[in-house]
């Protein structure tokens, strides 16, 4: 655990809405991207001289492009329904982390410059000029939003703070105030093909190591192929699956599922990343560039299907935007969803009896499931509404004997973010990450105390890394977070097959 110089929120016996403490998180700012990270994305390398003019121009452009943004900025009636719904507010007490407070940072400037009342009677309508202080507040507080959209579920008008936060980051980028973590990573995807900067030969070496490990464990040769032309399925998975724990245990599980079902599949060294941080920074153009790599890989390899691994926001991009960004995918097999989630595949194979499990293999664990925000609130799975909630749980129940859900107001579409989503999974934001994880940690503690839960499963690389890092601050251990396909991997009954 890293050293910390702030107070970690206490886990109470029941959720408490904290009293407001103004400005407690004003100091929190991620490192800024320098020119070598900004320029490959098409942004100025540092704060431009005419930033105010450029920022307002950009805001005008976005208001024209995204009708939703203007609706969100216009329609808030200050009812207060969102105020206690954000995990960052609950963990920090800073009123600018209330969703309405966060929206107002942009809304006040919008009113001043783009509405009649704000132009002529600014004080009456809470309109304010764009000053350097306001710009600094944007940089600080729009990097304390994980774009998880929990607040939007409770807003009677459906205002989506995530979209406002994305617009704010796009404006910041356009004046040269980019965030190092996200922008360095996007530049790496363009150069090397994934967030980690893992070159092809390292990917091959890593996967060969996994093949050895799986063979040692099961006596079965399960393949983890890369760049295999003519394979039926292209697997697009977060590069964290190659690198980190418990992510890699999930990747091992996907391979076992493909093997057992007799499906031919491959990874791509060109599109070796599911994550698409273009969404976090609100940049349609960067989101499109990253997505187009997947299209190119699918065409080059001649695959018939695209399946996504366990990555939360990647599934939002894939499910909701991929066809617009990089379609049409008319060259893929239309009998399967385009794209498909690995959980949909596994679930279908369980239902049709192709996969069998020895559940006792997971008897050393009592599980709960963390709904990842982008899967829960920005996508679906399967054919039925709510499939994104039931399908992962069905997979866990099929592979484990012991499963309990966390309190209902913290799961499904009311799920609490892990605290590290939306481009905040970086060490320079550790304070906001730890404080923002408090509501989830509290819900976890409840099922640990009530049902003896020992592990929490998730289907998002960010959630897994975030919990590995922050759970120890709340009295848990780093290995209490597991991949859903890790549970599949442990319990799947494997037959010897010709490969």
């Amino acid at each position, binding site marked *: 655990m890293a050293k910390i110089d702030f107070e970690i929120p206490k886990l109470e016996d029941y959720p408490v809405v904290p009293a407001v403490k103004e400005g407690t998180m004003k100091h929190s700012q991620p490192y800024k991207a320098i020119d070598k990270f900004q320029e490959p994305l098409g942004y100025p390398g540092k704060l431009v001289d005419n930033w105010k003019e450029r920022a307002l121009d950009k805001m005008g452009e976005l208001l024209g492009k995204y009708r939703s943004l203007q609706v969100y900025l216009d329609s808030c009636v200050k009812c207060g329904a969102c105020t206690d719904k954000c995990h960052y507010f609950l963990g920090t007490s800073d009123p600018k982390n209330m969703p309405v407070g966060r929206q107002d940072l942009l809304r006040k400037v919008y009113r001043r410059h783009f509405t009649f009342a704000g132009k002529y009677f600014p004080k009456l309508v809470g309109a304010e000029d764009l000053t350097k202080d306001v710009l600094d507040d944007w940089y600080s507080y729009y990097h304390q939003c994980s774009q998880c959209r929990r607040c939007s579920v409770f807003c009677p008008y459906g205002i989506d703070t995530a979209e406002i936060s994305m617009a704010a980051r796009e404006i910041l980028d356009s004046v040269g105030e980019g965030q190092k973590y996200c922008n360095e990573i996007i530049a790496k995807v363009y150069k090397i093909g994934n967030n980690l900067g893992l070159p092809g030969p*390292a990917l091959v070496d890593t996967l060969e*190591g996994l093949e050895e490990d799986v063979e040692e464990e099961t006596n079965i040769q399960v393949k983890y192929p890369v760049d295999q032309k003519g394979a039926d399925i292209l697997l697009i998975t977060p590069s964290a699956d190659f*690198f980190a*724990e418990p992510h890699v245990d999930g990747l091992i599980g996907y391979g076992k599922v493909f093997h057992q079902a007799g499906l031919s599949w491959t990874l791509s060294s060109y599109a070796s990343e599911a994550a698409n941080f273009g969404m976090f920074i609100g940049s349609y153009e960067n989101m499109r560039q990253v997505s187009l790599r997947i299209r190119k890989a699918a065409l080059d390899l001649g695959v018939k299907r695209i399946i996504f691994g366990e990555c939360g926001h990647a599934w939002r991009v894939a499910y909701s935007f991929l066809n617009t960004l990089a379609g049409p995918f008319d060259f893929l097999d239309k009998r399967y969803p385009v794209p498909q989630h690995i959980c949909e595949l596994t679930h279908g194979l369980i239902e049709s009896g192709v996969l069998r499990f020895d559940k006792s293999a997971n008897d050393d664990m009592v599980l709960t499931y963390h709904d990842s925000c982008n899967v829960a609130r920005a996508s679906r799975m399967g054919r039925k509404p709510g499939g994104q909630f039931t399908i992962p749980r069905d997979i866990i129940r099929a592979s484990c004997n012991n499963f309990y859900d966390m309190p209902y107001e913290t799961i499904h579409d009311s799920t609490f973010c892990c605290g590290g989503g939306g481009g905040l*999974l970086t060490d320079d934001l550790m304070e906001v990450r730890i404080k923002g994880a408090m509501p989830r940690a509290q819900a976890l503690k409840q099922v640990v105390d009530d049902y003896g839960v020992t592990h929490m499963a998730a289907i998002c690389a960010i959630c897994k890394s975030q919990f590995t890092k922050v759970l120890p601050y709340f009295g848990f251990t780093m290995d209490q977070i597991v991949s859903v396909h890790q549970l599949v991997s442990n319990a799947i009954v494997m037959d010897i097959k010709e490969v």
Partner: protein
Amino acid sequence: MSIEVNGKTLETDEEGYLANINEWEEGVATVMAKEDELELTDEHWEIINFLREYYEEYQVAPAVRVLTKAVGKKMGKDKGNSKYLYALFPYGPGKQACRYAGLPKPTGCV
């Protein structure tokens, strides 16, 4: 930012990672460890040297599993796991050990 190693000033980024990997020498690891109040033992050096060798070949830090496997092979199976690595490098083998070894910080959802 910078660190002082054997009378030389070496540039680092804002997170304390060496700006130029070619400037690395053993003293870099010793100085960084001292700042973290960590005494480097032979076990630490085994990891640091492995990271550097791997980076030389693949231009990236090894995946956690690649690292644990290599450690297990060299130092005994009981040590081939992340628990052992975290005991050596409490801030995380990827991040703390990579920094000592002069490697860039692993980025992404890790």
